[in-house]
């Protein structure tokens, strides 16, 4: 009987660990990756950043945070997907800056300010590409300004727009949309 006791203890702990693991996995696993056609209404075209054919049968709606490393990691694969299936897939981007990411919101404002000059995606790609650099900076605003120059923006307008209510309202609207769909983490991608 005694030889079985340590085995029993170990088996019990293994079972508990597996049970807790399964419970946590179920809790953290994104529940809804597909939304209904009605929910997929993505607002007025000028209010949503989208690329790919407007008639594409598949729409990917991404909720992203420019300071989040996994968001950065999936950025290029998503771009590649859009290049490979240009007529079949449409990518849309919504800002979902997490509160624990210090510079995520300023980065979202920078992207939206670039969007006001028609260069949202250029800034989007650059912010993700240079993520490891500006996230380490103590004040990334200078870097954002240099990114604005790189993507060919009117920097005076960019500096004015980045603090404008219009830009803040656009980010807030994306966050409202996230709340409606039950987005808690990012990256979250709906098809």
């Amino acid at each position, binding site marked *: 009987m005694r030889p079985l006791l340590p085995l029993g203890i170990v088996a019990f702990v293994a079972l508990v660990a597996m049970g807790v693991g399964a419970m946590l996995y179920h809790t953290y696993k994104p529940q809804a990756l597909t939304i209904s056609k009605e929910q997929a209404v993505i607002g007025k075209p000028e209010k949503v950043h989208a690329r790919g054919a407007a008639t594409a049968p598949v729409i990917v709606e991404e909720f992203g945070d420019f300071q989040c490393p*996994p968001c950065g990691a999936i950025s290029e694969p998503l771009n590649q997907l859009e290049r490979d299936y240009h007529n079949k897939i449409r990518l849309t981007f919504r800002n979902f800056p997490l509160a624990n990411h210090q510079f995520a919101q300023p980065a979202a404002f920078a992207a939206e300010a670039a969007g006001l000059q028609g260069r949202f995606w250029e800034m989007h790609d650059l912010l993700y590409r240079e993520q490891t650099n500006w996230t380490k900076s103590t004040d990334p605003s200078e870097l954002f300004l240099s990114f604005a120059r790189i993507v060919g923006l009117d920097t005076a307008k960019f500096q004015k727009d980045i603090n404008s209510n219009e830009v803040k309202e656009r980010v807030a609207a994306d966050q409202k949309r996230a709340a409606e769909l039950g987005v808690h983490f990012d990256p979250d991608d709906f098809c």
Partner: protein
Amino acid sequence: MARQKQNTAYRQPATSRSAIIVYSIAAVLALAGLADALYLTVLHLTGQSAVCGGSPSCSQVLASKYAHIGPVPVALLGMLGYFSVFSFAVFSIFNNARATVLMRITVWLMFAAALVLLYLQAFVIHAFCRYCLFSAAVTFLLTGLVVAIPAQSLTPKARP
């Protein structure tokens, strides 16, 4: 024959009281490490590493290319390590000399892995994940137990 051999192993004298205390502490520490590694594994598998404890440094570490070896998350290897240490510690309490040796080997391997991971966080990723630091602290404490207590005092003594 195999059963006879197994019975002989369990017929060894009872483990000393101090050794039982040391193994029990090791088992509790391993359980703490197991819980930590389990949480990190789940975060990795569900892709929620971005919200790791509300800390950007944590997500930097967990989303880095060093967080997995091929398709296997490092946290999962940590889980296996802690579970092994827990199992060996429990078997050691019940006087299994082979388990004691295996526990020491596993703890030393985990100590080496913890050093490598700390180096990567400090000098390559330039960010520290608090859960990884907790895991390193648990491993160091386990190593401390293994080092501080002489091997012979942990090995069951022969019956006079």
